[in-house]
Every structure is written in C-alpha cells, then in structure tokens.
C-alpha cells in the first residue's frame, strides 16, 4: 500500500478555536471545511483528516460547512469527528460511511449514592463481577436468549422500550435516553437476514476496541459547574459508572449491506461522483436512501437495547454486592447519548429553517438550551454530553452550550487517537501497562493484554485539551470531570 502524502491546507483563522479551509483547496468542494480546535490540537491532527473533511465538503446538499471536531483523526470516508448536514429538500444525501459501521455507538452514565471510600476497598471484586456479567471481547455473546424473529420484530423496532418491557430497566431510563430510547423511523423489513444472524445473540455485550465499562469517581475539585452537577445528581466523592458501546455485529452488517448497495447505484442511477468509496451515498429522498435510513434506525434501536440491558446488569452487580436495591443505591441514569448516527433535524440555515439529515461520525449530538431534542427534565439547561477519555486519563460530563447552534448541535466524542494500534502495541506490553495502572489506583480487567496495549493512554490526545477546545468554542461546557477507578475492556 503506497503511503500517500497529504498537503497541509492553508487555514483561515476565524477565532482561536475555529479554522476554515477555503473551497478552492480542492476541486468540487461545495462549502468550506471548518475545524473546531485549538492550534495545539490542529498541530496534532494527521494530515489525512484535512483530506477527508474536504472530501466530505464535496457531497451533494451539504450545508454551511463540513465540520471536524477537536478530537478529529483520520478514519475512512469521513474523518472521526466529522459532522455534515445535508438539506433533504435540495438533493441532500445520506451516507453509511458518514455514520460509521457501529451505528449509534454511544455513552451511558449511571449514578450511585456510594462514595469513593465505600467502593475503593472492594474495587477489584466489583470489577471482576462486572467483567463476568457484562461480556466483552471478540464475538462475545449476551445472556438473553431470544429468537431471530423476536429480534427483528421487537428489538430492532422498539429499542430500549423492548428491554424495559422485558424487565431490564426502569421506565425513567427511557426519559433519560436520546430519542426516548427508540428510533421511531426504523423498519426491520429493510434488514438482511445476515445482519440478524450476526447480532441477535449479542444483546448486553460491550464488544472490543475502544469500548469499555468504567467505574469512576467525582474528585471534589473536578466539579466545574456546581449547581448543574447537583441538579443532575452528582456530588463530591461520588462513584459513578460510565460505559461505551454500540450496535455490535448487527449494526456493522447493516452498514456494510448498504455501503455495497450505494456503491452500485450512486453513480449509475444518481450521477453522484465521490472521492473515496467509503463516502458512498444516495439522495436521502430516494428509495435506497430511505431504505438505509429506516434500516439504520434498527441499528440505533439495537444499540439502545444493548446499553439498556448492560445498565440492568450493572444495577444487578452493585445490588448483589452491596445488599441493597438499585433504587436504594440511587442508580439513576444521567443520560444515554450517541456519537455515530444520522439524525433528521430542523435547523436554521441563513435565516431559513431547513430539514436536514445530520451525519455525526465520532461526534456527539449536543443541543443548546430549549431544543426539542432534549428530554424535558434537561431542556432548560442544555443537553447532557458525555465525552469518554482513555482508560488512564478520565472522561467528562458536559452540557450543550449556546454556540452549539453553529455546529448543527455537535461536539467532540472522545480524546481522539494520535497513534496507530499497531504502534501502540509495539511501545508497551499489555501486562506492564495494566500493572502500572494498578499502582496508580486504576484496576483494569481486559479480555486481552494486546487489546489493552492498543488502548494505552499515550495513543490518545489529552482529553483536557479536547474539552478546552469545546469550551472555548462555546459548544459544550464541562460540568464534571470523572476519573477512572476500575475499567473493563474487550
């Protein structure tokens, strides 16, 4: 594979955290590319990011800018951290590669009323128990046995509602999940049998790679917005649980099926030319576009169901161990939020309200106060946003800021890799890494040592830098920084 050389574009500085690439940079760009990042983060991004985000700027129907968030790094097709809004009434497209293979991959944050001192002595036991109850790793299977038909008819259509109806969770969990825990546009007749076969036994599993489940704590000095933290149920020294996972093999197969379909019709039927096959797309208002949109909705639902069942297992483990009910332990969910999805939203563009299909690939939906997408209990404050860091550095709970309207309600999703997996694994042995972390008070249980090495903290950007950029840009503002205590990985 020849190593491609990429040109560093000339940036037009709009502010300290907003940098544009002019459409003259590349033939076919319909709008500028806009990077939301500090100079420091821009310097850390690989040059392919700029090539990929300017490719996105060539897609039909794109509005205003092709955005790249502060944690941007190169992926395929869209960069990770890419955001693009397409006007569905002006030939705007939908692209599986702009949503990602892991449809509706996202984060969930759960509270407890336990303190650091109460949990710390039992940390290892708790992590071991969670590790047993929440399967992780290559090809892992869940504990729920359902038929393929039930998966198609209920899980793919009802999402987290299916899980709560089956007793895996509380009705209030649904109110604290984006979209109320269900993509109501899903149509499971648009799903291949292969997708069902791959995914129906994986409900309640984490997967691998950068997916994890983490016991975290609120170090008192890490509370940034005290009144909002209190309002959302967070307090000093509290222990919370955060996890990151998606739609597993089911979502991956849905994305693959439609990527292949779009490649076959895009140019011949719709005359769309693209610069990278991973940008394969079709008009949103076309039979293929609608089929993918409704199939993607099923992927969204699988991921909501998956995270709902995992939440139920976490409550069971804590309840068993502390001999108290999850209610007595105050195990309320704060929020469930996705960073890989295409969502139909209305936004004002140049003074006109437009219907847009917003692609966020490795970018979190982040709504400013008052938006109807925000559950009522949070609406006046802005949407809760969860940005997960590496297993060493910590994560953030933030709130949608007023300037999120300038990024189509989008912000960063994580730290963003700066180093390849292969290289990270060459630099550190998994076992040594985990021993080092344990000495620092972070207990990690991983299915695989090499998998853990690939996720070493040094392979990522500093999450504080990412949050600094979203704060300076006014798109998402920190509420609490959460530090890792125990971590489970695939």
């Amino acid at each position: 594979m020849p190593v491609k050389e990429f040109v560093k574009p000339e940036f037009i500085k709009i502010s300290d955290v907003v940098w544009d690439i002019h459409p003259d940079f590349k033939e076919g760009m319909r709008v500028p590319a806009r990077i939301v990042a500090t100079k420091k983060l821009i310097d850390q991004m690989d040059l392919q990011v700029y090539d990929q985000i300017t490719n996105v700027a060539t897609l039909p129907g794109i509005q205003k800018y092709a955005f790249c968030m502060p944690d941007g790094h190169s992926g395929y097709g869209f960069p990770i951290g890419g955001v693009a809004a397409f006007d569905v009434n002006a030939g705007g497209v939908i692209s599986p590669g702009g949503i990602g293979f892991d449809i509706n991959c996202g984060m969930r944050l759960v509270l407890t009323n336990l303190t650091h001192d109460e949990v710390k002595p039992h940390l290892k036991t708790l992590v071991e128990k969670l590790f047993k109850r929440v399967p992780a790793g290559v090809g892992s299977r869940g504990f729920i046995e359902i038929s393929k038909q039930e998966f198609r008819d209920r899980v793919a259509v009802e999402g987290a509602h299916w899980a709560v109806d089956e007793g895996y969770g509380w009705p209030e969990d649904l109110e604290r999940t984006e979209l109320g825990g269900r993509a109501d546009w899903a149509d499971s007749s648009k799903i291949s049998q292969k997708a069902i076969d791959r995914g129906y036994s994986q409900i309640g599993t984490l997967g691998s790679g950068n997916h994890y489940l983490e016991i975290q704590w609120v170090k008192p000095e890490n509370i940034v917005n005290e009144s909002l933290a209190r309002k959302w149920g967070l307090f000093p020294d509290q222990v919370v649980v955060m996890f990151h996972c998606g739609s597993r093999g089911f979502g991956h197969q849905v994305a693959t099926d439609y990527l292949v379909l779009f490649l076959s019709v895009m140019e011949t039927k719709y005359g769309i030319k693209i610069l990278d096959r991973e940008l394969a797309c079709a008009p949103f208002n076309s039979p293929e576009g609608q089929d993918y949109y409704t199939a993607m909705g099923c992927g969204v639902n699988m991921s909501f169901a998956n995270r709902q069942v995992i939440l139920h297992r976490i409550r069971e483990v804590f309840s068993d161990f502390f001999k108290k009910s999850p209610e007595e332990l105050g195990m309320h969910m704060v929020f469930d939020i996705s960073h890989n999805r295409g969502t139909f939203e209305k936004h004002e563009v140049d003074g006109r309200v437009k219907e847009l299909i917003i692609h966020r690939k490795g970018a979190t939906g982040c709504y400013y106060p008052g938006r109807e997408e925000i559950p009522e209990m949070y609406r006046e404050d802005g949407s809760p946003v969860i940005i997960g860091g590496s297993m060493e550095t910590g994560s953030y709970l933030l709130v949608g800021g007023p300037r999120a309207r300038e990024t189509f309600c989008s912000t960063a999703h994580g730290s963003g890799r700066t180093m390849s997996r292969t290289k990270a694994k060459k630099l550190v042995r998994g076992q040594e890494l985990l021993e080092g972390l344990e000495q620092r008070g972070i207990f990690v249980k991983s299915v695989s040592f090499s998998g853990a090495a690939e996720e070493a903290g040094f392979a990522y950007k500093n999450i504080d830098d990412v949050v600094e950029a979203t704060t300076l840009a006014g798109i998402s503002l920190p509420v609490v920084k959460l530090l890792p205590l125990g971590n489970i990985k695939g």
Partner: protein
Amino acid sequence: MPYRFLEEHAISDVAFEAWGDTIEEMLQSAARALTNTMTEDVDKIERKITKEFDVEAANVEMLVFNFLQELIFFKDAERLLFSKFDLDVNEKEGRWHLSVKSYGEELSPEKHDLRADVKAVSFHNYRVEKTPGRWEADVILDV
C-alpha cells in the same frame, strides 16, 4: 506469512497488505491477516470444524471483499475463527466464483489471545491487483 500490518496507514483502524503467487494464495494470506487482527496467534486455532461456503462477485475486488466479510460474519454468527483455507477461484463470463473450505474452531478467550473485534472491511484505499508475478491486496479493517 505473506501479509504485513501497516502501522503508518490507519490510526484508529487496522491496515494490512497481503500477497501470493496465485489468487488463492493471496486470499489465504488476507484471511489469515484478518484472523490475526482478532487473535494473536492464528496457528493456535485448531482445525476442529470445517465450514464450506461459496462466494460470488462481479469482479475480483468484490470477491475478496465478500470473502473477508463472510469470515467476519462467521465470527459473530457462529463464533468461529479459521486458520486454514482450501480455496478455488473460477472466472466465468465476467462472474467470479470462489469455493471455500475453511478449518477452525469456536473462539475462546482462554485459549486464543483475542485482540480486536473486526467490524467490517472498509473500501478506504482498498486495492486488489494482479501485478507481474503476484496477486496483491491492500485492506483496511474497521475495528
């Protein structure tokens, strides 16, 4: 082991190049590279189960793509990993046909040092080519 991981090509994903004197050898190499992405030592996968299937495509690129996707499918649907493949490729009137007999076993976290769960084969910088003397494939996997 005619494949090589390319660390300079993919930051969040896994890139490899695979090659062979014949198309079947190249396919075997690509399949082992894919498996090696999921487990540290491909040869630790014993040949306890045989799976036979056919793959078809309109061109050789899609033939390789569909074959690798099929192996990803078996990893999720039946938890199977394979270490050896008997392969036979035919081209007839513009259709490519591959018949596969693969040997492997159910994956086990205790036995196989598992690495990353492969989600999909991506088309990014994807290439399958017959050069003078050998077949080559460049593949980036989403993990």
